[in-house]
């Protein structure tokens, strides 16, 4: 029987739809033409320009600082929140869950405006601190939900067993709960990190002078500067992300125990 070509066609179509823009971006970053457009020959000069552009380095630094701080804080807060929501079930917890869920469904633009109003009300100086605080709020929600998902198949008896064997809480948390939740917490943290690095809208509202992040920088260069240099920047960004994701996958796979058949 002749196999239908239809599924293949669909796959190719979808792949093109997803990856053609990225492909064009990567190609564009090596194009010796100031405003993109037709191919003018291979060049690395955009990458060289990238290295010398001070603003980019400043923005990268800002982005990384914000992302790291908010990831660490959000992971801690989110994990604790998830544990509480998992362990106790009451009216208080239902409300807590609702609050945790809100930032996911509220439009970013609303979040941005309301946070801005809040900061202005407290006459806080807009800058790295306000951006970091804003990022912590929505990252915490994501971490909570991811870890809560992992907790669905967490056996509470294991904690009882540790108590039964005489362990105190610090040891139980460190030796029993965290190792079991490790993968969940790690994926929550990764998600938080990427969301923070990525965020434009909320950051846009709560940023101040001298706190330009990469997404903000990219946006403004697209409007006022050279788009080609952005192509180069994005290509590097993509390469770094790909390496991180692949390493993460590799580590996860290696840590999974070999499931043996029951004898």
């Amino acid at each position, binding site marked *: 029987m002749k196999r239908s070509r239809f599924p293949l066609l669909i796959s190719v179509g979808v792949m093109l739809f997803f990856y053609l823009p990225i492909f064009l971006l990567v190609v564009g970053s090596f194009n010796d033409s100031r405003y993109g457009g037709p191919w003018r020959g291979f060049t690395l000069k955009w990458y060289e320009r990238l290295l010398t552009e001070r603003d980019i380095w400043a923005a990268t630094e800002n982005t990384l600082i914000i992302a790291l701080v908010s990831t660490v804080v959000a992971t801690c807060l989110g994990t604790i929140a998830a544990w509480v929501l998992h362990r106790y079930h009451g009216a208080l917890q239902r409300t807590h869950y609702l609050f945790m869920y809100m930032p996911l469904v509220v439009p970013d633009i609303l979040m941005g405006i309301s946070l801005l109003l809040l900061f202005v009300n407290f006459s806080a100086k807009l800058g790295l601190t306000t951006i970091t605080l804003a990022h912590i709020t929505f990252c915490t929600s994501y971490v909570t939900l991811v870890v809560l998902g992992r907790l669905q198949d967490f*056996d509470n008896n294991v904690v*009882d067993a540790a108590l*039964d064997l*005489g362990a105190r809480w610090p040891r139980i948390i460190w030796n029993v709960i965290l190792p079991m939740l490790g993968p969940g917490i790690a994926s929550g943290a990764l998600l938080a990190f990427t969301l923070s690095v990525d965020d434009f809208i909320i950051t846009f509202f709560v940023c101040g002078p001298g706190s330009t992040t990469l997404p903000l920088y990219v946006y403004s260069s697209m409007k006022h500067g050279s788009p080609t240099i952005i192509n180069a920047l994005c290509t590097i960004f993509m390469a770094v992300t790909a390496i991180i994701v692949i390493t993460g996958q590799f580590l996860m796979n290696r840590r999974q125990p070999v499931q043996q058949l*029951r004898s």
Partner: protein
Amino acid sequence: MEHFIELRDICKSYGQQAAVCNATLELKKGEVFSLLGPSGCGKTTLLRILGGFQYPDSGRVIVNGQDITDLPANKRPINTVFQNYALFPNMTVWDNIAFGLRVARMTRKEINVEVDRMLELIDMQDHARKKPGEISGGQKQRVAIARALVNKPQLLLLDEPLAALDLKLRQRMLIELDNIHDEVGITFLYVTHDQGEAMSLSDRIAVMNNGSIEQIGSPVEIYEAPGSSFVAAFIGDTNFINGQVKEKIDHDYIRIELEEFNSVLAWNDKQLNPGERVDLSIRPEKFRLFRNKPEATPYMNAVEGTVEDIIYLGAQTKYWIRVGEKLVSVQQQHGRFLLDETPITWGENVWVCWHANDGYMLQRFDEEDASMLPLPPEEDLEDDEEAQ
């Protein structure tokens, strides 16, 4: 002497519903004590209160004369084998067993010695480096026992440790548990809803129903002298016969007028007087079936009935005999020397005989418990068979 472990008037409810009420238990040092009862009767709740994972609403938990009701689980000299094992999935078998010793800050050398000794006891030396995900159910169970035992607790709690295993493995593990108990000699509190497990393992059994303890006694007492209709019906199979005391025959025996059929003799261990109501429980295997009326002997009961149904059980055969209004279940070995030459068949006229001592008077009788007993197969099924 004071009892080793005492639970005094323990009550615990979840919202409106009482999970355990007024439970009082005393355990002796070194015995195997079982909590037996149907699902949801509060066994786990009672066990968790003893283990310190839950606190009772009222009542006291006393170990060695010391009140430990308010002591948290990690300070009690008690270890638990959980219903689903609850091994630490991220640790190897070896580390699982060593956990309690590490918590107790024993030296590395001592830990090595103790863990290896335990691994030998449960015969798992070859699997020490595996994770719980890589061993079988029976092996997990042994690791769970070792993990608890290695701490040398004064009391080991086991919550239906064999529930997840298949029949053959269950029987093997039961023997192993018994051996382990003989070897370490500590007190076991064993929770189960399987009467076979409880009977074969325990020195004493507490039968629970609806959150309260119905009876405490040795397996023989529980089976032969059930305190209530619930116990009689839950442990094994039985026939309930209700009637009124007609007369005292002598000091020990009475004649009972039954609602369903003729009057019978019974041992008067409750010292009832004429006119009082009486509820008898007679186990199916206490009866003997005869084709012809056997010669009367003192204290022998013989009633006439017809065979309504026969169920072949392999090792034994179960007969449903209609005696007057009542269906009586009778269990017999196949040996023909007790009967006549040919096996008894459907519709035959038979004599059901038993000794007056084989019926046991119940202190408490509840109609509802009688409905727990198995009923004979549907009548119309039988008709179908005859039609074929």
